[in-house]
Each structure stands twice: as C-alpha cells, then as structure tokens.
C-alpha cells in the first residue's frame, strides 16, 4: 500500500508516530523544508517524482498517496 509507505516517511520526517492518513501536514507542524525532504524520500524510496505544488495541494497521507498511485510511476 502506497499510503503505508507514505505514512512511514511522514512519521520519520516529522518526528512523530501518531499520524493518521487524514491529518493535515501543516497542522502536524510541517513546513516547506520538511516537505522538500519528503519529496526527496519519495524519489529515493518510492521512485516517485512529486512536484511541490502537488504536495501543497494534497496535504494528507491519503491524498498524496492517491496522487502518487495515479500520476507518478512507482518502481518496486
């Protein structure tokens, strides 16, 4: 499941383990520099290139995972 892998990355980069798939990135204390690290992790760990604009438009684990499943080619 992409959402599980995305959630694991968010937990690591935001330094918390209580994140649900519907929590808002910014409400969790996120900011653009952390977003950039997550963007890098998506490339390295999921093989998915996600533009920052899409990360801003999809600020939850559920929505960004759905975006990745639809738009960004995943490499296993």
């Amino acid at each position, binding site marked *: 499941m992409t959402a599980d892998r995305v959630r694991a990355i968010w937990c690591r980069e935001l330094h918390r383990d209580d994140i649900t798939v519907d929590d808002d990135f910014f409400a969790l204390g996120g*900011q*653009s*520099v952390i977003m950039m690290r997550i963007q*890098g992790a998506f*490339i390295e760990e999921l093989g998915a290139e996600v*533009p920052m604009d899409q990360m801003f438009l999809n600020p939850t684990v559920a929505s960004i995972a759905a975006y990745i499943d639809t738009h960004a080619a995943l490499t296993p």
Partner: protein
Amino acid sequence: MILVGEQVALPPSPVVHRRFEEHVRATPDAVAVVWSGRQVSYAVLDARANRFAHLLIARGHGRGAKVGICLDYSIDMIVAILGTLKAGAAYVPFDPAYPPARLRLLLGQVPDLALIVASPATAAMVESAGVEVIDLDQLADQLAALPATVPDVRTTGDDLCYAVFTSGSTGTPKLAAVRHEGWFNLMNWLQLEYGLHHGSHNLVVSAFGFDLSQRALMTPLFCGATQHLMASRNFDAMLAHRMLTEHDIRVLHCASSTLYLLVDWETARGGDALARLDFILFGGEALKSERLTHFARRPETTCTLLHQYGVAECTDVATSYDLARYRPGEHDVAPVGRPAYNTSIHLLDADLREVEAGQYGEICISGAGVGAGYLGAGGPENAKFTTIDSAGTPLRLYRTGDRGRIDDNGELVVAGRMDAQVKVRGMRIDPVDVERALGRLTGVREAAVVAVHNDDGEAELNAFVVPSDTELAEDDLRTRLLRTLPRNMLPSRFTNIPRIPLSPHGKVDRAALADLCRVQGADNDSAALTGTRP
C-alpha cells in the same frame, strides 16, 4: 567611513524597458522566455507587451499608474510586467503563493491601484481589492486589435518601475518604490562587472513577491539572454534541479536559504548542474557559510558565488563579494564586499556622522539606487530616507538600520540589525554574533538565536540548534561556546530542533522561534507548578 562605488555614466534616460527594446531590434528571433514547454522570441514578447501597454493607456492607466500583477510564473507574467513599464506605469507583484489573509492585507496597502492582472487560477485571491481584475486570455480579442508597436510614452529615470512589500518583520508590511534609474543602474552594473551577455540564460527560483525576484525576472531580458520560468507556484528544488540539468542555464539569483536547499539537493543526489553555473547571486540574510563550504570546495564547482547585500528600499543590491576570496580562518564572517556602480556605503553614528575606520556604524546607502520611498506612508517610516550634508552638497541617503563596518581590505561586513542588539545583563549583544559562534561548532548544522524577555522584563538569549548528527547536549554546547564567547553572550537555553523555521521569503522566521520560546517557558512554568516546589 565611506565606501564609494565606481562612477559609471548611465544613458540620459536610464529606462529599463528601452534596453529590452534594443535587444528586440538587434536579435528579434532570440528566445526571450521559456516556460512549460513553450517559448517566445524577443519580437513576439515585445509585440504582446506593446499591445498590453496600449490597452492600459487606453484605459487611462498610463504614466504614473500602479498596476497589480497576481500571476503564477508564466509568459503572461512577463508580458504584464513589460507592458506595464511600456505604458509608463509601475507594477506591484502580488504573490499567489501567499495565504489569502496576507494578500488581502497587502492589497489594502497600495494607494491608487489602477487594476490587477490575474488569471483564472489567481483571480479569486485578489477579488477583495475592490479594483478591476483583468485576465489577459479573456482580453485576447481586444488586445489583438491594438497596435503591436512601441507606445509613445516619455518615461524618465525618475519614474517608478516597481514597488515591493518589505517583509514587515516589525509589523505592517511597507511598500517600497523603486525608480527606473536605480533598477537600470543595478542591472547595468551586474552586466558590465560580471560580463553577463546574451548567453547568460537565467532560471527564476525565488517567490514573485521578493525584491530579488524582480531583478531575477528582468536581468536576462536586459542582457539579451533567455529567461526560464518554472511552472510551479512553490519553490521546488526537484524541478529547479531538473531545469538546470536539461537547459543551458547559466545564472541564478536567490536568497541564501534557497541556495542551501539547492546545494543540499545536488549534494544528496549527485550531478553538477548547480556547480557548473556561471554565477549564483545570493544574499538577503546573514550568511551561514558552513552550509556552502563543502559545495564551494568541490573540484567540479566552477560557479562564481556572489554574496550580496542590499535592501528593497534601495533597489535590491548595494554591494557584492566573490565568496572565493573568503577564508573562514582569517575573516570572522564573510564580507558582502564593495558597492555597485554609482552607489556609496556610509557608516554613520546616531547623529549621522561618519564613524572612524574599522568602527561599527549604521549602514546607510546613497547614489543611483536610493528608491522613491514608501508608497502610502506619510508618517515616520519615510524618515529613514534623509538628506545629509556631504562636503557642502546635500546628499540623499537611506538608513538601513543594519550594523556594519569596513574591514582592512575595504570590504563591507554586515553585523546584524542596529535594533537587534539587546542588553543582556547590561551588555549589548547581537544574537547573530552568538548564532555564528554556534554555527561554527562541530556537530551543529545550523543555529538561530533569539532574544526574548522573561516575566521580569529581562532579555534572555534562546538558542536553537539543528544537529548535524546526534542531539547536542546543553552542557557540551556551553563548554565549547565559552572558548570563543564571553560568558555574558552565552544563551540561557538551548533547544535541539529538526530544522529552523523559515518565513514565506525563505528567511529565518524569528517570530516563530520567539513564539516557541514562550511556549517552552509556559511548559516549564507548569512543570514547576506540578513539581515538588511548595
């Protein structure tokens, strides 16, 4: 002390878009803008901008008008900017990446705004302004019927070209207006001093509302080169790096914080597109040179790194320094160098008298870049623009509020804000000095220090450190800091944080850090209440 920049004659009418029009005549087929897989030539861009200028003039928004632009980076944005200038008007950038509440605040601050150019994606953000909002696409038929020739408008170097909001760290943002002469002088200096030419293709990576973005947008068109724009509303290191790799881009202008992010991206993922640029011009905040040291020393780094200083009120850049000359062992901090052409840096005391050589003073700027002041501000803000007597002649200058000195090599060194100095136990301290000392410690990736007043009204320094590896212990930091700082300058509290919060402009968000201190203070108080104390 005074540093005098080289005096270089400007044309009788130093008007920025006239230089662009010279390139239109000389190289009409050269590529002016590349965006989202599309491109326009100088001739096509000129024709579109001329038509938009005719439209503004026909609606009564000619010379002296102020035109708001709320667009994402696009060819239309460049058309709107050039068309506004050609009509004799000045543009005011409204950054669509700003939160709606901030945009509403800014919109209310522009006196006599003529209209706002927006797109379907941005129109809703500016509808609160109470002025007409227009969309270039919707006006396509009207525009096509207007002449493609340069409108006959007599613009002078004293006319306004743009006005940008200063960060407003002290509260309400202020709208700093810039004159054509200052902007022309800035780009003429960059072109001649650094040899920028028709091949000095540029990529814009900064937010539209930032003063340096106006320079980043116009400099390639001033030099006859190609402007590359990203189809992205938010800064995107991945896309930026891809653009640098895929296109023949030679120059970047950015805030220092943005440069760190780009450097980190290339360092983590390989490649040399950033390292092999001709120039990166950066500044806008105290430099954390440790963030660039490794990159600057890589053998493949052939790029010239220009560390610059300036203020929006004086057309963006006032001084420039080639970072290759910086020796961390010899210099305390990286200088910001020598003045732009036709620009002088004065170091003055509180009575506006020059300080002695090597002494600290307030950095004041005079010369071609001094702007027209704040728009819509009749009050004390404009007092920072003042006139002094210089050898019998009146000289207009701007007091930046920044503190600095001239080093032995005749380079300006910025040491923080005049008002950033706080009295801690009777000693005047600039938190930036402490920040730098912390930043030099092994194991510290980045540091920020803010002064907050405790319940007794006394200032305390709070340090935030981003560890490069494992969490840093307070005692260890204290011990090591004491080797370089007097005891009075030691922060009373150290906090490890994963990263330093940044403002929308990419600068260290000191207000957010101060808030964090207050929250921590409250936590400590409640801990004390539930503790063992009676």
